[in-house]
């Protein structure tokens, strides 16, 4: 066993273990952290395949951005764990049975008829090989059509997310800055002309009436 194979098995085992923990562990924060471990192990496997750029992007984007955001969401939302977990033990036997059967069948088929000797091994590149450059060349020439469609999918995701979460609340109060700037004196102030005549009867000082003052708004 070469060192590369050893590394592959170690990271592969870590990946499978972490992925299993993501779905079985009770605490959602821990589950998210195990997902981080799973991503990290996958990134390590990719590095053994000489896909350094992809591995770094996986760690940067998924671990650095997506999972942190996800942790925030998990911590901010008040998730009722007991309710979420209610069916777990009930469905475990049937789910487990299906999973075991599936794995056994796939293993049987793969061992029986998937002979790696039939397929040529991937080419090992030298030190001057740049994974980033190769990836860029592929994406922007060979797969430019798929790349554009992927961009459309992201656009649709943005539109859908905004359309489904943006609400116009009729009760919301907000300032309109441009109206505030454009305000004129006439909008705020009204000068009322009044004859300067003396009141015929003296107003009693002890009982001031509010009604007599004209309301200005």
């Amino acid at each position, binding site marked *: 066993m070469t060192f590369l194979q050893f590394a592959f098995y170690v990271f592969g085992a870590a990946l499978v273990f972490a992925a299993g923990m993501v779905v079985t562990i009770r605490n959602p924060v821990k589950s998210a952290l195990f997902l981080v471990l799973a991503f990290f192990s996958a990134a390590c496997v990719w590095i053994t395949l000489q896909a350094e750029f992809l591995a770094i992007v996986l760690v940067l984007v998924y671990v650095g951005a997506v999972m942190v955001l996800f942790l925030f969401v998990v911590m901010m939302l008040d998730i009722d764990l007991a309710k979420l977990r209610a069916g777990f033990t009930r469905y475990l036997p049937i789910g487990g049975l299906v999973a075991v059967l599936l794995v056994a*069948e*796939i293993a049987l*088929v*793969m061992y*029986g*008829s*998937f002979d790696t000797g039939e*397929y040529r091994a991937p080419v090992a590149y030298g030190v001057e090989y740049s994974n980033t450059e190769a990836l860029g060349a592929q994406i922007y*020439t*060979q*797969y*430019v*059509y*798929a790349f554009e*469609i*992927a961009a*459309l*999918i992201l*656009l*649709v*995701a943005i*539109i*859908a997310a905004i*359309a*489904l979460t943006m*609400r116009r609340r009729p009760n919301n109060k907000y300032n309109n800055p441009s109206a505030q700037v454009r305000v004129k004196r006439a909008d705020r102030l009204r000068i009322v002309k009044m004859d300067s005549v003396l009141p015929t009867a003296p107003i009693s000082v002890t009982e001031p009436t509010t009604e007599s003052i004209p309301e200005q708004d």
Partner: protein
Amino acid sequence: MTLQSLQTALALPEIFVAAMASAILILGLFINKDRNDIVCFWLSVFTLIATCVLIISDFATQTAFAFNGLFVDDPMGDLLKVAICLLSATIFIYSRQYNQDRNIFSNEYYVLGLFAVCGMMVMASANHLLTLYLGLELMSLCLYSMIAFFRDDKLAVEAAMKYFVLGALASSILLYGMSLLYGLTGALELAVISSVVSNLGKDNLALALAVVFIVVALAFKIGAVPFHMWIPDVYHGAPTSTTAFISAAPKIAAFALIMRLLVGGLEDLHVQWQQMLIILALLSVAVGNIIAIAQDNLKRMLAYSTISHMGFFLFGILSGSAAGYSASLFYILIYATMSCAAFGLILYLSTKDFESDQLNDLKGLSKRSPWTALLFLILMFSMAGVPPTAGFFAKLSVIQALIDANLAWVAVVAVVLAVIGAYYYLRIIKLIYFDAPQTIPEADAPIAVQSDSKIVLAINVIIIIAILPWIGTLITLCNRVIKQFVY
């Protein structure tokens, strides 16, 4: 590599739809709220009609590749694209009043609709596992969010959630199948996969495993039994305008997906997927037709009817001959037209605060609106497959293909189940013509729909009967495009 060598011009219709959808999206933000609906609506319909003109003016006679083999332009793809655009434009016209009445974000409805159309068109002319998958995701993502447009309606959100989770599961199963296929053949381009598969031989167990995953995912996407659970909930819970959209053009895209993947890539494994499709198709026709009888909601009933029609459509595919594929194509074109009209009628009868989606709401329709009743009559006869309608010829051609493929027993079971299915279509006609009208006030409200919708609906239904003199031409066209695809 230059832009010229990519043959970008072949994908002009797709590029046009995507560009217009983006333009309408931006434009919708700057237009006054009151006129927003109308402007976005007409622009979207114009886009789809113009796309049709673009495709027809440059209708492919030969198979041509673009974008380094990711994209293929062939007669089958062009025919499917024309159908997708026409049906979507029709649904937009039906939905306008409904969306206005219910304050659905019309700008987003049309924009997401256009993007979904773009996704379907990508699928229709995909020549690569990557484009097939991306087209499918583009379409599905738009549909998920269109279902959830009634954000405060429990049924709609539940439907969207179910569709989203199950759709994601199906997508992952499809990806797993595709990755196995890639591992075994070392290729993503369908033509290359096809040649490698024929070298590997049809008894390769690992290939069969990949086919199992792919067929399961396809069955999920078209809603064949036992992967149909989401269909009734989605059809029932979604706003009727979205249900109408889902029920028509995506079925044609599903045909494209199945043809490109199973026939274009894996035809040498026909023996493997034929058995699976027989089970799926028979179960679909049985469960769809029998459970539809028990429904009292019209949208739910049509959902089960969809399941059974999907079974019929699979019969053509599984027969595994050019004639069978062509029968399937013919069937799906006719079915999508009928389904479009059926939801058009529900949208037509619904008013501002009356959904008109219960079977009982149709009672005595012949007295309220004899013309609508007549349209329903024609449509239900066609869906049941009664002779003078296009629905009959569609069923006939599929069953013919089954018999030619020495699957007469399947054909017999299919016909028996179709007869059972006729019951619930005829029940609607009974409700409309022979039952006393209901006395709820909303049901008596006059039908107020714009005249464009009225005219299109009438054309849509009448075409089901009026196409009869040209039905031979349509079948010949289907045969021709399939021949070009298979050989």
